[in-house]
């Protein structure tokens, strides 16, 4: 019986002493075009993984993992979504299905502030299909441990050919926003 208890303790100890927090939320993108007032936007609420791993005292952000299937990004026009997936994301992922968008942040410096729970700065590593890049991001976790993240990515940096359709052409910079809520 004692051995069983010790075994169970060993199995569950990482869970008992870990502060991995699972989130739900949405990720969106917004790209300006060559026509003023015409922007292309899309979003998804379906994450394959969305979690943050804190230290016990919630002062150290050990890791954030975000995984999104590109096929779940919707712009409001089905044919456009199909295009985006087939001609951008599948190309990026070298025809591998599903085309995953991944973000990992495993080193961040955090501090408590008066108005928010913690403020963390770190360098996030992104993997869009087979293209990788890094980006400095700032995360502010509020008292409910929710956070909003916003950053720009360059299509050229990702070696994405600038998408264009019937005279409308995207600009290089795309704004990515994530709103996440503790489950």
């Amino acid at each position, binding site marked *: 019986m004692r051995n069983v208890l010790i075994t169970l303790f060993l199995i569950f100890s990482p869970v008992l002493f870990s502060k991995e927090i699972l989130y739900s939320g949405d990720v969106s993108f*917004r790209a*300006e075009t*060559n*026509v*003023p*007032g*015409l*922007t292309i*936007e899309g979003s998804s609420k379906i994450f394959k993984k969305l979690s943050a791993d804190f230290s016990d005292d919630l002062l150290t952000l050990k890791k954030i993992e975000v995984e999104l299937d590109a096929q779940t990004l919707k712009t*409001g*026009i*089905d*044919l*456009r979504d199909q295009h985006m997936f087939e001609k951008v994301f599948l190309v990026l992922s070298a025809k591998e299905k599903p085309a995953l968008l991944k973000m990992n942040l495993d080193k961040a410096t955090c501090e408590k502030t008066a108005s928010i729970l913690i403020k963390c700065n770190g360098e996030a590593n992104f993997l869009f299909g087979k293209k990788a890049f890094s980006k400095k991001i700032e995360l502010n976790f509020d008292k409910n441990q929710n956070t909003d993240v916003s950053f720009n990515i360059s299509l050229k940096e990702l070696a994405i050919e600038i998408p264009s*359709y*019937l*005279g*409308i052409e995207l600009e290089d910079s795309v704004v990515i926003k994530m709103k996440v809520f503790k489950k």
Partner: protein
Amino acid sequence: MRLKSFFRFLILLTLFLFSSHIFAYPTYIRLNYSSCLACHQSAEGGGSLSAYGKGIAYTESYLSREYTATKENSFLNFEGKMEHSLEARVMVLERLYDYSGNKTRIFPMQLDYTNSIKWKKDLRQEITFAVAPNTARQKGVDSDTAKQSSWINRLYLRTFKLDYSIDKNNHLVFGGSNLPMGLHLIDHTAYVRERNRLGVSDVPIQVQYLRLNKQWQQTYLLFAPNPSDNIANRESGFATKQEFFLMPNLVLGPQTLLAFGKSINRGLLGAFTKWGAGPWAIMSELDFTKREIKNSKMKFDQWSSLIEAHYFIQEYFRTSLGVQFLKVDSPFSEKEELYTFNNEFKFSPHVSFIVEYRQKSTDLLLEKTLFGQIFLNWW
């Protein structure tokens, strides 16, 4: 007689088979397109569609498909310099209240031919000839008893304008068309349109200057009477319209207008909003108008408002609820409320159907009406 009916049928069939885009304003709001230039060739919207606008029209229907600008658009287009479009609307109206006239009517509501010529890269001309029922052009005329003259006599020049693009952010427009005020509603009987002189035949001569960028769109315009206007209705003035893109999915548009007429001067102060998110498109407008009768110096106020919430069950199927209010002070006291329930089915890029239930109440009357409309477009 049979031959005449056959030809009528043939014309309708032709329109049905070759018609194209449909009115897409709620779709434009749902997709958060804040500039008319997204889908139209004119910066102030309406009229000829851009290639991208045609692409959107093709994708947003039950029989959707990808649009490619190919030879299907080559009829007399002089290598892309000239474009044509034909828009027709047939209405079926059923009155659900006690009414002494025809309870059910079927009539052609609209027939517009638009011709657009691109003289130079930055200079475009657009002309729209329209046939409208007599009742649409003459206020106070009963639609059941009015004798409809020949369509030739009901043909008028709805739009004639020159659009000069100084650059992609600055445009000058000269010509005659509806004032580009408020929301771009297709329903010319909406209080915010009809009661603010934005009816189908209100086409003053105007000079517009439009500025637009990523944060806002501004329109400044001067207008003068159209020579074909009834002398008593002629007015001149100026107007401004702003559209601020407050958030990615919210537009706020304050507007002002001052008009000096033969018999009445009026000033308008209003605002409209457009909000789109996911399958939703919500738009609203509130206008305050102060009028002065010149002879008697008598002044009176008018409030008109509208709010519509559209929900897209599918990209091609939209359902909406709308509420409109009108209040006019004495000596022309009026108080009206209008509730609408509207469903639109975009069958193909060429054809769409709208069914609408309306309930209008005044101090004395309660009118319930059912409309069915078929929109046919070709370009």
